């Protein structure tokens, strides 16, 4: 088979040291210049403005309070996620019913629904007269901390289930069987063997849930009500104050508050992640204590049955039905004027469609950029191309954007770019912000995939005469095809859902979740009807779902993301 000329040339080039190092160092430089340094420098640039906040004790304590709320909810929700996610993952992987496949797919739904739509859906279900509250005559859960907690539980739970399911599927069941043959009832076996072995995955699941919770902005604003504030809601509110005509806040206080809240969010986030990293491996699960009779009682069919029932009940009543409740007004809208209006793009709908197009093109652009700049980085991290220690440090640094609350990231990015390039186009700023937020997701999933390819395979290809790029084309790419796609799906969904960083960096451009958040706010003033919001959410969900379904079909039967 004659090789096309161009790949031949590239293959040959790729074996030159200078080309190889050139490519890898470009990836590293891009990472530092676009992803890692701007947010850090952004805060430093505005360091002095924080003075302005510290001299106003009331504002300081309001900001600190809001930040504290963010972390309390994130820690609480992640803990509950893990506790509730384990039985669900167990049921999905170990149950025997045919329906589990369906359940497995359904468990991803809240994950796929963009969070702004999810927030509105929950608001309708828990507090509006149309929802569950209709059974009680009054609002069952009013907007506020409880609803925010429910919301965060809803969108982070599927993430935890996904991670734990993956871990359970990879887990060698023989350990558990060995434990059983040595006399341990099922619960003891799970407690003393399975979960201690899976501990790293449980910690990873906790961290993922945690980072999603501290970053979530759009949906949180929708369900927070007027009194409750967490970090992102605080930043959003003072931004509204500043932008109001006439402004309710001067520029210096505004920038100071942003810098202060962002800095505290980032600092505490760092501390918590560092603590998890250091203490996590030392964390002892309760494996020392053995309770033979108690464990036995809880192990067998009756107890297992009630455990499964409670798990399913929680899933359907607290996660699934509230997530999909928005379908109700969306369907109602279909039989009214709203649908034709929407389709012809009349009034508010013209902006809606523009925002939808913006959201999806932004998602696509960010995904493509991620693949281009993330792949070489993933290979560096997985193959220790930069030497053992620098590669390990890079690996660590790559994860940093993951633990920075996205609104704080957006705030400092804006500080940096506006300060350095005054004429920076807003679209570019938006792309940079989304890139910074999604970059770790892609690099992580890719580097894990590359690590799974044994070095032997690669070396075998080299001994057979493949040049480095040839190895990449013929070995790494085909073997990681699925991971590239699943990484891309993750990046895309994350970008489409992202509200915090978006509102932080842009003033005129509006993405779909931003528009929905706005609509929900204006609903009080009756400029936008509930049916319209419902339909808006419905379209957003529908299109996201279709895109994901299309991507999923491409990798049909090749596992999960």
């Amino acid at each position, binding site marked *: 088979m004659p090789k096309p000329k161009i790949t031949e040339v590239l293959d040959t080039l790729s074996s030159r040291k200078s080309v190889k190092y050139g490519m890898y160092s470009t990836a590293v430089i891009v990472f530092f210049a676009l992803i890692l340094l701007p947010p850090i420098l952004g805060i430093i640039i505005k360091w002095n403005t924080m003075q302005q906040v510290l001299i106003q004790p009331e504002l300081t304590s309001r900001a600190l309070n809001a930040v504290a709320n963010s972390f309390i909810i994130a820690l609480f929700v992640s803990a509950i996620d893990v506790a509730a996610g384990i039985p669900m993952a167990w049921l999905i992987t170990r149950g025997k019913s045919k329906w589990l496949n369906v359940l497995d797919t359904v468990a991803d739904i809240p994950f796929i629904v963009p969070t702004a739509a999810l927030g509105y859906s929950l608001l309708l279900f828990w507090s509006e007269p149309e929802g569950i509250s209709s059974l009680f005559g009054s609002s069952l859960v009013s907007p506020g901390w409880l609803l925010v907690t429910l919301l965060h539980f809803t969108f982070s739970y599927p993430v935890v289930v996904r991670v734990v399911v993956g871990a359970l599927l990879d887990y*060698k069941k023989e350990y558990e*069987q*060995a434990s*059983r*043959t040595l*006399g341990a009832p099922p619960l003891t076996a799970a407690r003393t063997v399975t979960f201690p*072995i899976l501990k790293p995955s449980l910690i990873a699941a906790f961290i993922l849930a945690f980072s999603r919770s501290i970053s979530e902005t759009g949906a949180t604003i929708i369900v927070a009500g007027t009194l409750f504030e967490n970090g992102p809601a605080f930043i959003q509110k003072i931004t509204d104050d500043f932008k109001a005509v006439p402004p309710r806040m001067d520029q210096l206080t505004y920038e100071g508050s942003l810098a202060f809240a962002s800095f505290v969010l980032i600092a505490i986030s760092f501390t918590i992640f560092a603590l998890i990293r250091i203490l996590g491996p030392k964390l002892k699960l309760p494996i020392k204590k053995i309770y*033979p*009779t108690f464990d036995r009682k809880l192990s067998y069919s009756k107890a297992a049955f009630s455990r499964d029932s409670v798990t399913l009940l929680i899933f359907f009543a607290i996660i699934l039905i509230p997530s999909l409740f928005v379908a109700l007004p969306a369907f109602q809208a279909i039989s009214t004027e709203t649908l034709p209006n929407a389709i012809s793009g009349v009034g508010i709908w013209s902006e809606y469609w523009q925002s939808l197009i913006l959201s999806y093109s932004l998602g696509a652009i960010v995904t493509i950029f991620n693949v281009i700049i993330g792949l070489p980085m993933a290979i560096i991290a997985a193959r220790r191309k930069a030497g053992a220690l620098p590669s390990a440090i890079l690996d660590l640094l790559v994860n940093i954007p993951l633990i920075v609350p996205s609104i704080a990231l957006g705030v400092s990015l804006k500080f940096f770019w506006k300060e350095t390039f005054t004429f920076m186009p807003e679209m570019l700023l938006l792309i940079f912000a989304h890139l910074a937020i999604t970059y770790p997701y892609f690099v992580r999933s890719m580097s894990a995939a590359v690590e799974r390819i044994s070095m032997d395979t690669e070396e075998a290809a080299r001994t057979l005469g493949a040049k480095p790029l040839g190895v990449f084309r013929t070995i790494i790419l085909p073997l990681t095809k699925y991971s590239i796609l699943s990484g891309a799906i993750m990046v895309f969904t994350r970008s489409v859902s992202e509200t915090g960083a978006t509102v932080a960096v842009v003033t005129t451009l509006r993405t779909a979740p931003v528009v929905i958040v706005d609509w929900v706010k204006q609903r009080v003033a009756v400029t936008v009807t509930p049916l319209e919001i419902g339909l808006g959410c419905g379209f957003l969900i529908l299109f996201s779902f279709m895109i994901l379904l299309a991507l999923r079909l491409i990798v049909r039967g090749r596992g999960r993301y």
Partner: protein
Amino acid sequence: MPDVRIVNVTKKFGKIVAVENVSLHIHDQEYFSLLGPSGCGKTTLLRLIAGLIRPDEGEIYIGDKLVNDVPPEDRDIGFVFQTFALFPHMDAWNNVIYGPKVKGFDMEKATTIGHEVLEMVRLHERLDAFPSELSGGMMQRIAVARALAAGAKLLLLDEPLGQLDAKVRNELRYEIRRMSKDLELTAIHVTHDQSEAMAISDRIAVMKKGKVLQIGTPKELYMNPQSVFVAHFIGESNFLEGYVLNENNNEVLIELRGGIRVSVTNKTLTKGERIVLAIRPEAFIIEKETEKSKNAMLGFVERVTFEGTNIRYEVRLENQDLVVIVKPSLVGEWFNTGEKIILSFPLEKAHVFAYPDVGLREEIAVE
């Protein structure tokens, strides 16, 4: 002090019948092997006995107790996995005393048991090492010690030596047998290595495609294989095809391919039946061409391989069949490549089987 009775047990995985209507009785304190080629259902049968999976049909008794519905933790068994399955998050010592601990024994008793079993497997150093830091042989000892510490009377071993290199394997196989005899355990040992099974077993069940073909002592299986497959799988056999020309009392006259006629002792064959004759390589008698005796076949030596203890001849018969003959190298005379010889064999050393329905090649294929 359990014996194990398996009665008409069947286990299917979807369409695959992994174990088909198997019945076995393994005696108390016996060292019993399940032997067969890969995929024949040995592991499945062992896991059925352990209770890790449940039979679709049939009953399993341990001692006198029907255990079909008893979970593995209540069967008082010790299971040694092929990959050992040592708990990676516990050091060697904690692996060993895991059984006593989950059974609710106090620490003092668990410690005593731990030291006892470690004494048995003769391992005293590196107890604070984690499994990933241990050599294969040590992991194997820890795996056995862990199974013993749980107080098992029935030891189930799934290819316990499969992961070890040849030398360690040969040493450890006798040790496992010794331990199980010292502790008066019943042991069921799964292997696909016939020499391993022959070396250590009291009795062996030879399995193929989910069925037990023959049960017997190593000697019985070797001397009296009851099927072409067992003749092939246990030791080595030459297979010659032919049909029954004539029968007379117990002596049957057979014509092999190419017109060679031999007679053997057999009661069940009828005239005209297609057969396979199995002869062990060492059962042949080789003579110079000049002499002639009963069951003699003409051939010439195609290849000679010196193997140390033995010399191995590949001899082409007149009918173009190739037979392998093994002779002790220090006894008798040697023959050279190209030499014409006469082969014969004693009547009672040849086994005659009806020609397998699926064909000879297929019948002895081990996949």
